[in-house]
């Protein structure tokens, strides 16, 4: 056969015929989606098979193989053709000629071609060196020529993949992680790359590869649908742009949406985000499963027997919170956990996971989603605190939140979330969807918790500040109403709800005013002061503004803006300080019971205490399990040094955490001389399980006061018994002297991460500094402790400025310790 003959033969089914059919297929609007991709692949198959038959002249020992996306039979309009010409190595020159006759027609049509010519041995070697080549070959599909050659390669490649999975899957995981780092997350980006971003098509392919290794499998619900959706969008993107691009740029989104018959670009993005969430969540779960399987294989049975004394390997479970344990690097529910009777459990488990920096196991989230009952309205205090703890955990918050979100737990807890979920923002400054932006803001805000007196309000405001997006009109105005409503439902009191509403209403006020108004104009400063109202709100708004801007995108915050906003805050703060009355030291009259205890303490000369389950005035449903853990501790003890560290220490030893603590001195009524009694009114909660008896607490307290109970040693012992966890890295503690807060005492403010024994160490530090604690107001807001101590010198006078400052420094050093 001559060269000309061959050409003529190829012409019939040849390039022009194929090109016309291809064009017809792509412009035909009737059947887009999977049928079109399959039809395009089938059409291309036939054409290439024709080319091969015409060019190969029945050359033995050669075959044409489709790999990668083409191997899966999914061709998008502008996809590359991934082709492998496989040969047995017996006739290299003939194969080279064959390759020329195959590749040139493809190039001539202007199609992108990814080609290689290899023997089976070479193909295996390449796969062993290059993970991407390996992944492509997993989808190898025979097109033409020697079918036996292709089948043998497929079998070998799959067998290699299974054999080497323990080595290569971690490689693949690193590859995916590195790509996610570079490309960002498809589900939150406003101009996402459908293929490369985390949760995109490449990740879906990686999951197929994991499944092909037989080592682990992805949760399959919705995965195929999600993949199909992304492929459909990519088809439309290729057709509307006429380019082989995978980036869904802002300017293309309207056209792509129209092409897919969707209402608008927002609908399009929302569908893309939903699909990406399914894929990236399936990826998270799958990779964790891979890690677990590999870890359990890594420890050899023999070695395990040696270490474990021959017993079968039981996963170690470490308690994290009531009903929540850690197992194998994941957070799972304890065997005793009863989600159906414990509505706070989802939040408690999430907060514990985020604090420990661990993921929530898929099984636990599903069980919580299915079984946990609704929270009462308003939420009990514990639920709100756990939410704040979850939000305040920094970076780990994101994955825990995502896991809850994926199973619909968040929308059930906060119905208003549904509207911002997966909502794109048409704004060049933003890089995230609204929901992710809110979480990112909380993550940033967690770093500012030491700058404000109410970290819980800061974190809640971060979560809610854009909740009004998706409603008509100004989102700050709509958000104000929603925030007030949500704040009430999650159990903030009326005053706090008002502060939250103000923060949401004015979350753009500082930036807008600072960059656009004249700060030298007193009217500007006055207007902001009026909107904000108090110093405390101003401080919160300042932190929220910065967190919001940092979470928006690289363009939203700069030292330029920071300096303008700081200047405005300083001016407004000065104005508010001048107008605000001096905060009075709270001194409510003692109740009859407090007085009775005080008198008894004076008589016996030792501590007297009562423990009483906290009555929840809102809870009138007797069928519901009472909130089991909170109790009120009322304690009176004759005034003496060392009371605060002793009480705090005894509670810590008994595994009780202090939620709030009030301490004050009480002058006894007439007839008891001028003796004073210290009165402590504390709200405490058991870390796990039940409360200790009052008599045991009292006995230990007596020993602690006379020094025969070594609290510091006991606490250190207990700390050492716990495994060190990565967990979150909280911002460092801050201890400051509050200026001019009281005429009678020096006020030391402490803001720190709550930890077992924190109050004990604080009390001890003040005791060591030879100051008297006259009263203390301790509150734990989520994972943050915000404490104020009114201290005096031993003679009862406030400390001089320099001594106060050095005390604050000493206490801070102790905490950093």
């Amino acid at each position, binding site marked *: 056969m001559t060269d000309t003959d061959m050409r003529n033969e190829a012409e019939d089914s040849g390039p022009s015929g194929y090109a016309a059919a291809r064009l017809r297929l792509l412009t035909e609007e009737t059947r887009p989606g999977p049928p079109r991709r399959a039809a395009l692949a089938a059409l291309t198959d036939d054409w290439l098979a024709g080319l091969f038959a015409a060019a190969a002249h029945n050359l033995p020992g050669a075959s044409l193989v489709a790999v990668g996306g083409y191997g899966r039979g999914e061709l998008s309009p502008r996809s590359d053709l991934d082709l492998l010409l496989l040969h047995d190595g017996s006739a290299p020159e003939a194969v080279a000629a064959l390759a020329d006759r195959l590749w040139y027609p493809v190039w001539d049509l202007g199609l992108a071609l990814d080609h290689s010519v290899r023997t089976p041995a070479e193909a295996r070697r390449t796969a062993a060196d290059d993970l991407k080549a390996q992944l492509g070959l997993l989808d190898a599909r025979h097109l033409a020529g020697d079918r036996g050659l292709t089948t043998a390669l497929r079998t070998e490649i799959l067998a290699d993949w299974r054999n080497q999975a323990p080595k290569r899957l971690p490689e693949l995981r690193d590859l995916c992680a590195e790509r996610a780092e570079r490309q960002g997350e498809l589900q939150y980006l406003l101009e996402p790359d459908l293929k490369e971003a985390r949760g995109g098509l490449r990740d879906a392919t990686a999951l197929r590869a994991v499944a092909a290794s037989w080592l682990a499998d992805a949760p399959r619900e919705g995965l195929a649908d999600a993949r199909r959706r992304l492929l459909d969008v990519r088809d439309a993107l290729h057709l509307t742009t006429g380019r082989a691009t995978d980036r869904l740029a802002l300017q293309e989104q309207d056209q792509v949406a129209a092409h897919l018959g969707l209402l608008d670009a927002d609908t399009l993005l929302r569908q893309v985000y939903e699909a990406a969430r399914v894929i990236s969540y399936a990826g998270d779960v799958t990779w964790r499963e891979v890690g677990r399987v590999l870890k359990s294989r890594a420890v050899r049975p023999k070695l395990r027997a040696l270490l474990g004394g021959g017993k079968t390997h039981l996963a170690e479970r470490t308690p994290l919170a009531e009903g929540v344990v850690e197992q194998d690097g994941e957070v799972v529910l304890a065997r005793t956990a009863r989600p159906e009777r414990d509505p706070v459990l989802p939040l408690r488990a999430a907060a514990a996971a985020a604090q420990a920096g661990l993921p929530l196991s898929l099984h636990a989230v599903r069980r919580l989603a299915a079984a946990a009952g609704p929270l009462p309205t308003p939420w009990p205090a514990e639920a709100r605190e756990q939410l704040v703890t979850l939000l305040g955990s920094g970076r780990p918050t994101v994955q825990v939140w995502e896991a809850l979100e994926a199973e619909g737990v968040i929308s059930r807890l906060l119905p208003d979330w549904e509207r911002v979920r997966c909502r794109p923002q048409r704004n060049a400054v933003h890089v995230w969807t609204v929901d992710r932006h809110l979480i990112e803001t909380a993550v940033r805000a967690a770093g500012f918790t030491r700058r404000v007196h109410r970290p819980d309000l800061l974190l809640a405001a971060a979560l809610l500040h854009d909740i009004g997006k998706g409603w008509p009109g100004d989102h700050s105005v709509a958000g104000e109403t929603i925030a007030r409503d949500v704040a009430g439902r999650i159990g903030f009191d009326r005053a706090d709800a008002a502060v939250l509403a103000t923060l949401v209403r004015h979350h753009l006020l500082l930036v807008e005013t600072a*960059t*656009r*108004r*004249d*700060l*030298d104009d007193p009217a500007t400063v006055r207007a902001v002061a009026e909107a904000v109202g108090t110093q405390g709100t101003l401080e919160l708004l300042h932190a929220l503004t910065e967190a919001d801007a940092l979470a928006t995108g690289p363009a939203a915050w*700069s*030292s*330029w*803006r920071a*300096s*303008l906003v*700081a*200047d405005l805050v*300083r001016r407004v703060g000065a104005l508010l300080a001048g107008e605000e009355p001096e905060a009075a030291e709270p001194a409510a009259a003692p109740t009859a019971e407090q007085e009775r205890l005080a008198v008894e303490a004076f008589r016996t000369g030792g501590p007297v205490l009562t423990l009483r389950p906290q009555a929840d005035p809102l809870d009138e449903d007797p069928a519901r399990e009472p909130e089991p853990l909170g109790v009120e501790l009322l304690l009176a003890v004759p005034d003496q040094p060392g009371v605060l560290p002793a009480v705090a220490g005894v509670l810590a030893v008994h595994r009780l955490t202090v939620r709030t603590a009030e301490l004050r001195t009480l002058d006894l009524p007439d007839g008891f001389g001028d003796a004073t009694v210290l009165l402590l009114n504390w709200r405490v909660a058991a870390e796990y399980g039940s409360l200790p008896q009052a008599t045991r607490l009292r006995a230990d307290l007596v020993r602690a006061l006379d020094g025969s109970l070594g609290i510091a040693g006991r606490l250190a012992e207990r700390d050492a018994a716990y495994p060190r966890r990565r967990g979150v890295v909280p911002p460092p503690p801050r201890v400051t002297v509050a200026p001019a807060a009281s005429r009678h005492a020096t006020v030391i403010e402490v803001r720190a991460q709550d930890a077992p024994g924190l109050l004990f160490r604080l009390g001890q530090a003040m005791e060591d500094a030879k100051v008297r604690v006259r009263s203390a107001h301790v509150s734990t807001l989520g994972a943050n402790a915000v404490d104020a101590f009114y201290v005096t010198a031993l003679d009862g006078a406030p400390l001089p400025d320099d001594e106060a400052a050095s005390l604050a420094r000493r206490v801070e050093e102790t905490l950093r310790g």
Partner: protein
Amino acid sequence: MKLITAVVKPHRLDEIKEALQAFGVHGLTVTEASGYGRQRGHTEVYRGAEYTVDLVPKIRIEVLAEDDDAEQLIDVVVKAARTGKIGDGKVWSLPVETAVRVRTGERGPDAL
């Protein structure tokens, strides 16, 4: 052609933009800038610590204009930027050799 550059107080931007629009200027470039002039910054007390702010936030506005309009344009900017207080900023102009509109390739005054 001239390039007119103004470094002014941030809060005057809206006024300047409006004034330029009224004058018939269609495009301008704004950047966030910091700097100091004769006032040499100032001293501030923030969170108890005293420190010197030597760089004050400003915005930098750049406008291209035809030679004949330049002087008038400068006056428009100066008028809109003035508050009468220290730190109001500066406006200057430079000769421009060429300007090209990227999309169309138009050159010179046509590109404005």
